[in-house]
């Protein structure tokens, strides 16, 4: 899973030659063996390295504040989202829904690496939601649909059908 994400990220960034990754331990933590230096370990570390290699530093945030927000969501992805239990899913979606109420992207008005990796990470949760649940987590659904249509992001993942108008309008959020 993590290796496919990294290869999708490479394509999105327009990096010409794909890297070769290995994995470490039971949790299959990705490892990138650098030509001139020690190996890089972990999804977020490698992803940030690729972004710098592609000279797209704005994807890590363009101000001190947004850089911190991007790191916070990348950490959320690997610590909370990966390996979450069935009971956690509702809390995660509820919190994210509240957070996205007044935002288009996770770091506010600008697309960043956090959107990419939260999208990859949350995809298996969204696939399983019923239409009514997608509407219940309306802000997550809107953000998700926007990111899956963002040019060059949805490489290895199947598209999720999302309604563009509400049908359960009696509910208030």
């Amino acid at each position, binding site marked *: 899973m993590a290796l496919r994400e990294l290869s999708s990220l490479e394509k999105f960034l327009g990096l010409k030659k794909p890297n070769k990754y290995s994995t470490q331990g039971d949790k299959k933590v990705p490892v990138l063996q650098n030509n001139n230096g020690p190996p890089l370990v972990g999804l977020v570390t490698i992803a940030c390295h690729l972004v710098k290699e592609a000279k797209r530093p704005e994807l890590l945030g363009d101000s001190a504040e947004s850089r911190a927000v991007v790191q916070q969501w990348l950490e959320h992805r690997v610590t909370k989202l990966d390996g979450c239990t069935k009971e956690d899913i509702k809390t995660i979606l509820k919190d994210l829904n509240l957070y996205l109420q*007044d935002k288009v992207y996770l770091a506010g*008005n600008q697309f960043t690496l956090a959107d990419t990796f939260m999208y990859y990470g949350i995809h298996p949760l969204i696939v399983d939601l019923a239409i009514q649940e997608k*509407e219940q987590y309306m802000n997550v659904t809107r953000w998700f649909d926007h990111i899956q249509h963002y040019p060059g992001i949805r490489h290895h993942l199947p598209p999720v059908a*999302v*309604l*563009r*108008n*509400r049908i359960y309008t009696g509910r208030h959020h």
Partner: protein
Amino acid sequence: MALNLTINTSNPPLGALLAAEHVKSSVQVSVEEGKDTRLQVSDAIQFNDTNSISRYLARVAPALGLYGANMMEQTEVDHWLEFSARRLCGQPGLAVALGELDKALSLRTFLVGHAITLADLSVWAALKGHGEWPSQGKSFSHVSRWFYFLSSQVPFSAVGNKYAVKKAPMSKSNQDV
């Protein structure tokens, strides 16, 4: 083919200016200040209405997709152009119109499709020029999110800062900041 857009400085047509700003990389449009708003296309043809000007500019630069990607989206764009002209421009009952807009925007980042279209330009421009809008923003969270997102993007912030100031006499109390 060079186009000439003249704008009424006391009531700048924000939607037309935004459209001009979006298409300027593919079509040559010059903007001049004057008394009346008009787009001079040739000696015989000119447009005076801000939505007509936007439509023409979107059509001469089809690659930008400002008029939507297919016939369905094109119809949706037409719907929002009419909505902005009839429901948001100085009419009473702004709250009802904002309620409809809020519902439409709850599951969308942009009004039509997955990218900027004339619908966003025209509705944003109508709200930007509306004296009552910012104070009503709190009750319509989806409209607010959409409005401030667009306001932060480049052509919108440039056009907003350059031309909105000239409407100052309408809301004097807000201008002391």
